[in-house]
């Protein structure tokens, strides 16, 4: 097992390298001149040329890549073209905020999906099941930005139970931090919750029809034990795959949600940087999220082996 994990970790190096080349190339061939975007209303050609030179944008592409790679290998991801802030600092400063926010959303999504999905599967076609199905459809169809604004209007403006966005430091104002977390976390959780709920329900329904459960019941096990110990553990295997993929996908959702709730995380940084052609920042964020995807997929594969003893990663003989 350890060997397997090591091998997978090693494999990440060439993948990360490929990602860096692809992102670098795609960004540079996307039409749009970063210097013009930064220039705003100030278009003095001499100043623009000086900026191009300062950022090395007047160099040929391969040279730019090599320079970037050289620095990146030494742990220096450069400075933001737009704000001159070191990229590493820009990301590290925001990462905990995005992790807190994404983690909260994931927690809501998974826990609600597990509980409600299981209940819905056990009481198929009951009112609860119907409500859960209805919610699934609504949750998948409602765009993030729309749901976010509705939540702000209802809970922040009309009912005044939560603040309309913003961030407070957990270390100094823990209660305020949590209060501000609720609406964005619900917004971000909704879409994935809908998918998870559906997945939990259908894979559990599938498992529930298997014969080994009848055997379990026949040998006198209580319903609770049948569901929790036998049905759920098997039913969860496909669900874990979906959860794992969502960890990576949360960054996508964070992009919009963070902007609406002005949560100063990586998602918001990504939006500004892509629109502004802030090459070094976009490169770093994409690389980071690619790594997050790879690590979460690996974690899912490891979890598999734990959940399903039939799966083994030992090297086959021959």
């Amino acid at each position, binding site marked *: 097992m350890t060997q397997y994990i090591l091998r997978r970790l090693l494999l990440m190096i060439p993948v990360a390298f490929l990602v860096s080349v692809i992102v670098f190339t795609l960004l540079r061939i*996307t*039409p*749009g*001149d*970063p210097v*013009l*975007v*930064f*220039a*705003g*209303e*100030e*278009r*003095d*050609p*001499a*100043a623009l040329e*000086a*900026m191009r030179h*300062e950022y090395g944008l007047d160099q040929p592409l391969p040279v730019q890549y090599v320079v970037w790679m050289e620095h990146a290998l030494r742990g220096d991801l450069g*400075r933001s073209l*737009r*704000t*001159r*802030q070191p990229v590493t600092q*820009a990301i590290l*400063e*925001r990462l905990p905020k995005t992790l807190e926010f994404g983690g909260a959303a994931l927690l809501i999504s998974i826990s609600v999906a597990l509980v409600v999905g299981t209940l819905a599967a056990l009481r198929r076609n009951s009112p609860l099941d119907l409500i859960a199905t209805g919610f699934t459809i609504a949750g998948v169809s409602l765009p993030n930005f729309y749901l976010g*604004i*509705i939540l*702000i*209007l*209802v809970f*922040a*403006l*009309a*009912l*005044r139970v939560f*603040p*309309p*966005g*913003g*961030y407070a430091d957990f270390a100094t104002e823990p209660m305020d931090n949590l209060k501000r977390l609720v609406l964005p976390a619900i917004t971000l959780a909704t879409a994935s919750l809908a998918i998870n709920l559906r997945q939990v329900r259908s894979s559990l329904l599938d498992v529930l029809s298997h014969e080994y459960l009848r055997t379990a019941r026949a040998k006198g096990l209580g319903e609770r034990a049948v569901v929790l110990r036998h049905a759920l553990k098997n039913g969860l295997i496909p669900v874990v795959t979906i959860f794992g993929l969502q960890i990576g996908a949360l960054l996508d959702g964070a992009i919009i949600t963070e*902007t*609406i*709730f*002005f949560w*100063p995380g990586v998602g*918001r*940084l990504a939006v*500004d940087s892509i*629109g*502004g*052609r802030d090459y070094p920042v976009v490169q770093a964020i994409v690389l980071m999220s690619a790594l997050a995807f790879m690590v979460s997929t690996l974690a899912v594969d490891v979890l598999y082996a734990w959940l399903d003893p039939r799966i083994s990663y030992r090297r086959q003989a021959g």
Partner: protein
Amino acid sequence: MRSARYLLALIATLAVVLGACAGGQPSGGGPSASPVGAKPVYGGTLTFALENDVIDFDPLRSRAFVDRNLHYQIYDSLVRIDPTGKIIPWLAESWETSADGKQVTFKLRKDVKYHDGTVFDAASVKWNIDRYRTTQNSQRASDLAPVASVDVVDQYTARFNLKAPFAPLLATLVDRAGMMLSQKAIEAGGADFTRKPVGAGSGPFKFVEAVKDDHITIEKNPDWWGKDKDGNKLPYLDKIIVKPIVEGTVRTTNLRTGDAQVANNIVGKDVESIKSDPNLLYQQGPNYGFDSIFTNRKKGAAFEDGRYARAVSMAIDRKQITDQVFYGTRFPGYGTIAPSHFAADPSFKPFEKADPAGAKALIQQIGKPLQFEMLVTAGTALDLQIAQLIQAQLAKADIKMDIKTLEFAQILTLQDTCSYQGATLIGWSGRVDPDGNTYSHIYTGAPNNNSCYSNAQVDKLLDESRTTTDEAKRKAAFRAAEQIYVVDDPARVWYDFRSTQLATAKKVQGLVPYPDGLIRFDVGWLQK
């Protein structure tokens, strides 16, 4: 269930409000900010909801308009404008222009210190202006291009030597090119100075911290030189927290919930909800900014023949745009010179009534029907709404306009090289002197002349408006030029002038709208 009913009620209310607004009632200025005789009190913290995060605190590098919202609190410039746009003394107590117009001598205040304790004097003026003029990537170099050198006459007298007379010089010094910073603080700040201008200003507020996309904190400068009209020391406020909130509706919500007390960029459709809120005050004043349509006048482009641009100008209904899209927060506009500029002519309304029939006749006269493509920035609902409205208006004159959405960065590149086929939308935040609104947009080959317009007569008039300091002569030159580049041989199509909006909690006092759209917090105070 209760919340579901609540939601329905909310949606119904929204629909009613939106319906009422679509009726279109242009809003005038709000009631006066401060009850007569109210005595300012010291203290308090204010939260200011800003439309975006500040990118650059260094006036030398700053490009974005939004930056200036902070610059104006932290830094003092040599001269300033009053709420009517008149240039008034600031760090410079007085100034004198030589007879040939090539030397401007400033007498400086003697009681000014930067936040880091260093003294402001003529040597500091010279150092700052030279830094702006000669630093490699200075965004201010072109603003100060007419300046040949600065002499330190004595400790508190500085003389600007100009290459040629340059009438807009004072107006230029109101903004970033005239902001004075401490040399010591800049050198100590190094590469991080653009984000942490610690101790650099001499203004009413000192920089404390800036956390990207989260907040900026500035606090009272207790040693500021400014005094109110009764001789009390300014500023009154202890602290200002600036929160960058990009989403317009969320900015308004923050005001209404009391999470912010000041905002200066309000979405048109939200204005009614602020006006009807008993805790809020909405003020609206004139502004130098305008919005326009670049019609590509380059050879081979759709508007090579300027008469097509005039036809579009005739066919569009400006009032419909300002009413339906901006809910009366902008006003029909016809050129670069805004109503509050000295060179404005209030009777200059060349396309006041939409005239699709006239446009049709003009195009028939040219002989070939007009069809062109309008590029709109993807993801900007407001721009798309404007484009669609214009599309419908032009259809009445048999002009076919196709809308194509593209990413902002792509449109910029196409604009910069005049390589778009037909038209794009372009706004301008406005400058104190009409020259700043005009020259770089209209003059042949100028950086913001992205319709590739060229008219020798206009160029001559604009040069004239720069070299003469006589206000009446300058106005005459601007009037003659505007008639040409708007009507006779249009450079592009202008459709509105902006307004300065200022929404505050009622307990915020003393703040008034300035035509450059920037708030001066030095006189603001909070009712206890």
